[in-house]
């Protein structure tokens, strides 16, 4: 396989892993003000992601950094064309980050109320906007051969874009509720199971509508029709989506969370496979698509970065699995009583 092709799929994989890891953080933050009835509930939810969310967020930094390193033209064009939505995401992430750290530093209702609101804003909006952004990329973005953007930001909120946003939010809520089912007990856990099950009932039809809408709104299926074997990935995706509910019903919550993780990765790859070789298609003229072949770095940079990624990302995965393993049990009262707890 060519270097640029390898990098295209690595690029897709890094974004997919970001959605998979930060996805449950975003999902939990989204249901947080509604499902967390008491302060203890809310603190349990925060401490369930507390040790992990910082490391999860670095997948975004790495996905962004790798876009810069391997496909500088895509990095330049994508982030300047999507200036306003990206700034909104970044501000939202700032709010979420400080809110998680600072909420429990002062024990007054007013202080906590402010940060609770920001945790919701900082989780819901990135989930929604990443979905909207990627759905718009699937459709193509109006930019010319100079990389100059010719649309207005509100145009991103078209029906297909919003459908993508809705799909991401629902996926992340199910994923987050599954993680909370692992890390909570009693009434909170029962509520999380219910949220996972009910949201799943909405998620399935939305996913089906998204698959159908993609046929009309995008060219994603062209690759699939050219190589029908690719539909196998979609089949596994559907199987993973269906198995979420199966595992939740069987009360094997870790398996359910794993299934929702796989679903998120494969949903991302549904688009990535369809996009190939374009990373950032132009809706104005197919000749202006930024692809793995016309927007990549030099072979030397791609080789060095490949070596770096192949050595260090497996190491990262090892110590992150170790961290997940350390914090896989339900959050206890003793955990909440710790001075450092959120």
């Amino acid at each position: 396989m060519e270097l640029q092709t390898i990098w295209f799929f690595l690029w897709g994989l890094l974004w997919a892993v970001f959605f998979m890891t930060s996805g449950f953080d975003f999902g939990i933050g989204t249901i947080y003000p509604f499902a967390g009835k008491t302060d203890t509930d809310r603190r349990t939810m925060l401490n369930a992601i507390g040790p992990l969310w910082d490391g999860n967020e670095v997948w975004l930094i790495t996905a962004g950094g790798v876009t810069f390193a391997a496909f500088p033209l895509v990095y330049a064009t994508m982030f300047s064309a999507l200036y306003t939505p990206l700034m909104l995401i970044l501000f939202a992430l700032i709010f979420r980050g400080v809110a998680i750290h600072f909420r429990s530093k002062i024990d007054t209702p007013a202080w906590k109320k402010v940060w609770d609101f920001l945790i919701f804003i900082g989780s819901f909006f990135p989930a929604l906007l990443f979905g909207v952004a990627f759905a718009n990329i699937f459709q193509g973005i109006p930019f010319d051969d100079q990389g100059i953007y010719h649309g207005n930001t509100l145009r991103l909120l078209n029906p297909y874009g919003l459908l993508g946003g809705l799909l991401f939010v629902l996926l992340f809520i199910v994923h987050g509720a599954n993680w909370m089912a692992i890390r909570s007990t009693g009434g909170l856990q029962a509520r999380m199971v219910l949220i996972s099950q009910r949201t799943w009932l909405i998620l399935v039809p939305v996913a089906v509508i998204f698959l159908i809408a993609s046929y009309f709104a995008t060219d994603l299926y062209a690759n699939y029709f050219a190589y029908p074997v690719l539909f196998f990935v979609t089949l596994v995706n559907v199987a993973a989506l269906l198995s979420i509910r199966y595992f939740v019903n069987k009360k094997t919550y870790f398996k359910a969370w794993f299934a929702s993780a796989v679903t998120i990765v494969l949903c991302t790859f549904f688009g990535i496979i369809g996009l190939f070789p374009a990373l950032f298609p132009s809706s104005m003229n197919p000749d202006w698509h930024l692809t793995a072949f016309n927007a990549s770095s030099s072979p030397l940079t791609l080789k060095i970065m490949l070596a770096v990624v192949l050595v260090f990302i497996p190491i990262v995965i090892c110590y992150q699995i170790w961290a997940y393993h350390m914090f896989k049990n339900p959050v206890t009262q003793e955990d909440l009583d710790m001075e450092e707890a959120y």
Partner: protein
Amino acid sequence: MDPVFLSRLQFAAATMFHFLFVPLTLGLSILIAYMETKYARTGNETYLRMTKFWGKLFLINFALGVVTGITLEFQFGTNWSRYSAYVGDIFGSLLAIEASVAFFLESTFIGIWIFGWNKLSAKAHAGVMWLIALAGNMSAWWILLANGFMQNPVGYVIRNGRAELDSFFALITNKHGILEIIHVIPSALLLSAFFIMGVAAWHLLKKQHLDVFEPSFRIGLVVGLVSAVLVAVTGDMHGVNVSKTQPAKLAAMESHWETQTRAPLVLFAIPDEENERNSIEIGAIPGILSFLGFHDFNAEVTGLRDIPKDERPPVLPTFIGFRTMVGLGTLFILLTVYGWFKRNKLLENPTYLKIMMFSLPLPYIAIEMGWIVSEVGRQPWIVYGLMKTAEAASPVSTTQVFTSLMGFILVYGLLGAVGFYLMAKTVKEGPEAATR
């Protein structure tokens, strides 16, 4: 106002705000790792209380550093897309390496450190803080190499209408970058030492928690003294290198207009950029500037008049920034040397403690000034000699950048206020009371 100017303002605001938190993260992590190791080795509870107290302040600071850092990586794409497209082949790889090699390690282990007190042995927990300190400083290493490329581009060829990587080895052994690293890391330790001494002095003056703050102050004193000297030595090395590679920056640092040998150091001056001279100049000492720049009293120093007008950096901020930085750097050495002689009689020297308390913000000012010298002094280039800042901005509208800039000012202003409030509150509460 054009988007280039607004983007510059935004990047300056965002990086300078981010760098209020970076040095303390770099330096304090090392000092906390040392304190916690002492605890793990001796079992002495005082060191545990020290670790936890400074750890709380470290974490508040860390949170602000992380959230303000994330926006920076993306601003190269949002606001400097032409720059990103032109040098991404080189610059992007350094940022990507930073994330995968260092930032992952730091962020994953910070979660383990916060929540792992009951899950790890004391030694393993201290080891986690060493990893955090190592990862943070490795992050700085890669970021400064990236900045080093902007200051002194090496290891590239111009091919396919852009700068492409030619030698990765040259890129990571860039002299300018290495000099930045060995200057920034001791200055981060210096700031952290002054932070510790400033906070400790407040408690010592109130004669409370002496068992925690006397040793803390002494750790700060030793680290502060050593790093103050290192900062001066590496700063001098840096200056000599800049004289060779960036003559315009040197001339602006000294507001030096006339090319001459035996160039004088002017003690006080007010630059007049319009008329290409200093409107007031007091106390010129012949040969000193030549000596500082080239370690030779007779060396020729290029003046600003011999540098084309469109290749001169703004003189006033570079000049003031350099003076302030060097003046404060000298003060840090004097303060820590004096403290060294009084180290065993701290409580009997309330005036010194008071001075150290009020000196806490000074390293922050010195470091920000250093960055002004480095980055404003690099103008009008975004990559020295290779690409001008004006050619580097994104094709985005003034309204977009104006709106985001206002957002940054508002949000960062609030973050700063909240961060300061929480830090002050934590300082006031002090460490936990001794159990025995």
